[in-house]
């Protein structure tokens, strides 16, 4: 009999090697107790959190906590139904209105996760004769949406506007609508999309543009609307997709648009229709977090200052960190052995970051992926840099001469 599980042999041996080399499973870290947005207990020790995507620290927002408590007391803990059946309460429509208003758009759809927002929008918008044009380094939720859609899917080179243009030009004369999909800030590397150039191409070629602002909402732009706002090309973005699970600190996804047909997308979008809606306490907490974000623009300044501090510190000690300053800072290592040792040393010395290994990384090299928060103190950042220096030396990534 063929084993159903033979296909996991590769995973089993890769994981076995990872655990043997480092002493622990990097994908099974348990945060035993969060003490604040920036510190949690891991393996019984107080650990600095530098890998939680909690950019504004709002997972611990007092306003959001209070709002969730009130909503639970008033409405109960769940909706037990789909958005198109019994799962839409006033709160859901209220949140959609607030998100749409904040983006200054006609309407918003709220999904149960950001993953489902991409899955749903991408798979529903393009039909059989249409084309989806994706950045090669797109998030898994974008690739999965493309697989669920009947459209023809074409990749262009990461963040390369000329390559996008060339590939769209190749489609000149072919029938079918074209939807270009990019991310604001790329989740693994922190690279920022050249969205102004892409908007110009979209205009010239008559395509549609969807921007996933998962990591850039609350982070970039005057109001925190993301890269399109920062680049002044919001009007060219047909669909903004995002998540509540990063800068807003809760869970859930959304899409905002000025296209009135969004109303019909709701009735054709399987990841929206065939799943239960978000519970009231999450909706209430998300609205409160959004209020916090609006009331405290200084959080964004603080976040960028912190990102710049960590970025400069990494470069100073000689780490191969991202070129651009953004709240996602990736340290690229040359080989897995070093990455495993360094990641484990970081955790032992008191810093949690994400270990990203190929094939989930763009160029087959492992990454230590860090995310910075507005709530990190300068002292915490300096301590993290010092721990990176020590772990880098211990792992042979840095040499005493340079670090």
């Amino acid at each position: 009999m063929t084993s159903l599980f033979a296909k996991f042999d590769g995973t089993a041996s890769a994981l076995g090697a990872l655990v043997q080399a480092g002493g622990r499973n990097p994908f099974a870290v348990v945060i035993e107790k969060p003490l604040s947005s920036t510190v949690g207990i891991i393996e019984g020790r107080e650990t600095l959190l530098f890998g939680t995507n909690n950019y504004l620290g709002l997972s611990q927002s007092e306003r959001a906590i209070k709002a969730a408590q009130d909503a639970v007391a008033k409405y109960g803990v769940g909706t037990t139904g789909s958005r198109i059946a019994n799962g839409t309460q006033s709160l859901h429509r209220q949140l959609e209105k607030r998100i749409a208003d904040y983006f200054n758009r006609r309407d918003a759809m709220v999904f149960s996760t950001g993953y489902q927002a991409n899955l749903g929008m991408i798979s529903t918008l393009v039909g059989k004769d249409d084309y989806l044009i994706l950045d090669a380094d797109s998030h898994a939720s974008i690739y999965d949406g493309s697989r669920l859609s009947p459209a023809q899917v074409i990749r262009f080179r990461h963040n390369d506007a000329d390559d996008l243009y060339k590939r769209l030009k190749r489609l000149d004369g072919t029938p079918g609508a074209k939807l270009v999909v990019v991310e604001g800030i790329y989740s693994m590397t922190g690279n920022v999309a050249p969205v102004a150039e892409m908007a110009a191409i979209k205009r010239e070629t008559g395509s549609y543009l969807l921007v996933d602002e998962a990591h850039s909402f609350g982070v970039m732009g005057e109001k925190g609307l993301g890269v399109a706002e920062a680049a002044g090309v919001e009007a060219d973005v047909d669909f903004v997709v995002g998540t509540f699970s990063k800068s807003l600190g809760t869970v859930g996804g959304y899409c905002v648009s000025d296209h009135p047909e969004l109303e019909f997308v709701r009735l054709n979008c399987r990841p929206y229709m065939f799943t239960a809606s978000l519970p009231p306490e999450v909706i209430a907490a998300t609205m409160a977090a959004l209020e916090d974000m609006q009331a405290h623009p200084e959080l964004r300044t603080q976040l960028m200052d912190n990102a710049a501090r960590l970025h400069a510190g990494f470069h100073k000690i000689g780490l191969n960190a991202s070129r651009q300053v953004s709240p996602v800072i990736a340290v690229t290592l040359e080989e897995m052995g070093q990455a495993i040792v360094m990641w484990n040393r970081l955790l032992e010395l008191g810093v949690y970051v994400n270990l990203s290994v190929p094939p989930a990384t763009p160029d087959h090299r492992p990454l230590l992926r860090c995310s910075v928060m507005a709530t990190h103190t300068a002292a915490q950042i300096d301590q993290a840099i010092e721990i990176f220096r020590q772990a880098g030396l211990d792992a042979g990534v840095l040499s005493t001469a340079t670090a």
Partner: protein
Amino acid sequence: MSETVESVSALIIQKLLENPKVPRDIDGNCKIMEDLAFDSLAVMNFVMEVEDTLDVSVPLDKLADIRTINDLAACIVALKNKG
């Protein structure tokens, strides 16, 4: 231009051999993932290079049916004749 499956296949093999990790004795019947040990990302990235050389776009859904170098060549020729 009139590319044939043979000429495109030869071009693909030539491109593959630019990568020192690829076995030297490959032919059109080699399976790209199994025989060349390419993972799905490596296949997508390689196809992008071929696309640029031949000025054609191979939609990702078509890649699912492609196993050998000749399959890829046949797919590209079909796409070019259609356009």
